[in-house]
């Protein structure tokens, strides 16, 4: 087999004549300082980019967002509290109104009752007066009836006596009738 002549400038410790790696490229000492140098540059650049620009910015954004959320929550709590207060006030007003209505109703009821009582009393008094009056009239009527009976009795007695054919003394008859009626 004809081996190609090794190209001296290509072949080295790490690369064979065909441009392939010999062994692990990771262990090739020739390539290590280069990587370390550029790695350190890279890390320094990333560190400054992150610590000077990116991380403070993200931290401030997160803090701002946290602040906004906290504010919103407290505002919502404030509104909730207000709503609760309003509800309580409404409830109180409703209760007050109810109580007042109760009072007014009670008062009205009492007034009506008082008026009614007064009217009843008045009516009672009137009725009593009327009754007394009637009683009086009745007594008078009764008394006059007794008188009439007496007069009728006297007249009847006189007529009976006359029918018997004897004329009687008027005064004697009156006395006799009166005497009889008392008895």
């Amino acid at each position: 087999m004809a081996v190609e002549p090794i190209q001296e400038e290509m072949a080295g410790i790490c690369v064979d004549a065909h441009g392939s790696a010999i062994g692990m490229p990771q262990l090739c000492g020739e390539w290590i300082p280069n990587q370390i140098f550029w790695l350190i540059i890279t890390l320094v650049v990333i560190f400054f980019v992150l610590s000077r620009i990116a991380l403070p910015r993200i931290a401030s954004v997160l803090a701002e967002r946290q602040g906004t959320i906290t504010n919103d929550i407290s505002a919502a709590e404030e509104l909730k509290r207000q709503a609760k207060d309003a509800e309580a006030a409404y409830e109180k007003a409703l209760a007050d109104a109810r109580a007042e209505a109760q009072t007014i109703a009670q008062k009205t009821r009492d007034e009506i009752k008082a008026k009614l009582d007064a009217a009843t009393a008045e009516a009672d008094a009137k009725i009593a007066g009327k009754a007394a009056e009637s009683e009086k009239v009745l007594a008078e009527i009764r008394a006059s009836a007794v008188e009439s009976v007496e007069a009728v009795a006297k007249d009847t007695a006189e007529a009976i006596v006359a029918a018997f054919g004897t004329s009687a003394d008027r005064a004697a008859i009156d006395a006799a009738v009166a005497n009889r009626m008392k008895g």
Partner: protein
Amino acid sequence: MATEAAHGAETVEHAAGTGLSFHPMDQFMIKPLFGDGAVGMFTITNATLWMFICILAIIAVMVLGTSRRAIIPSRSQSVAELAYGFIYKMVEDVTGKDGLKYFPYIMTLFMFIVFSNFLGLIPMSFTTTSHIAVTWVLALCVFLGVTILGFVKNGVHFLGLFWVTSAPLALRPILAVIEIISYFVRPVSHSIRLAGNVMAGHAVMKVFAGFAALAIVSPVSIVAITAIYGLEVLVAFIQAYVFTILTCVYLKDALHPAH
């Protein structure tokens, strides 16, 4: 050196002879973007390019996406806020309030890893986090940072991390040895876990892609690539998450060394 290279070339030749050629590791090669010269320390390579794209992507999401500073976020702003909240909460939960000072550093690590992992899933792209050199630097930064911080914050008391007072006195020296070993193994496992996972997934996809050249098995291999790709999407996020949360755990040890 030359013979070794020649031998490597020969095996490739053999493989190519059968119609199948596997170069699953070639995707991890570092290549200069301009010209064919050697890769020096400051050469602009494909790794540089993808790190730069990673920076641009992070800027696009985290800076441009949040530029309206909206109370009601747009989609990109939501993503940025989600990432912020995710890592912020992780740091707070794991390390406590006093760990929040170090949040930007942890955020930097997380953003770099998660964006590199996902950018690496774009076909033909280069995955910077598949290189142990990269993850080693990340893990070493964490290890050194946490160790120094531990001693600065707690002084000698930081060594209490290795002296398990809740264990019987006789066991404590043995436990201390174990604790010290496990402490120093941390950067190794921390870095290899990330690079290993990412590299393995990408290599497996490349192997399946190599099989797709055979007409008989190509449907199977394409289905397999799709399945592995789905798995890799999970791995891309989970490994970034794991790296970050381990960083938080190590940071917690530094801030509160008592067990």
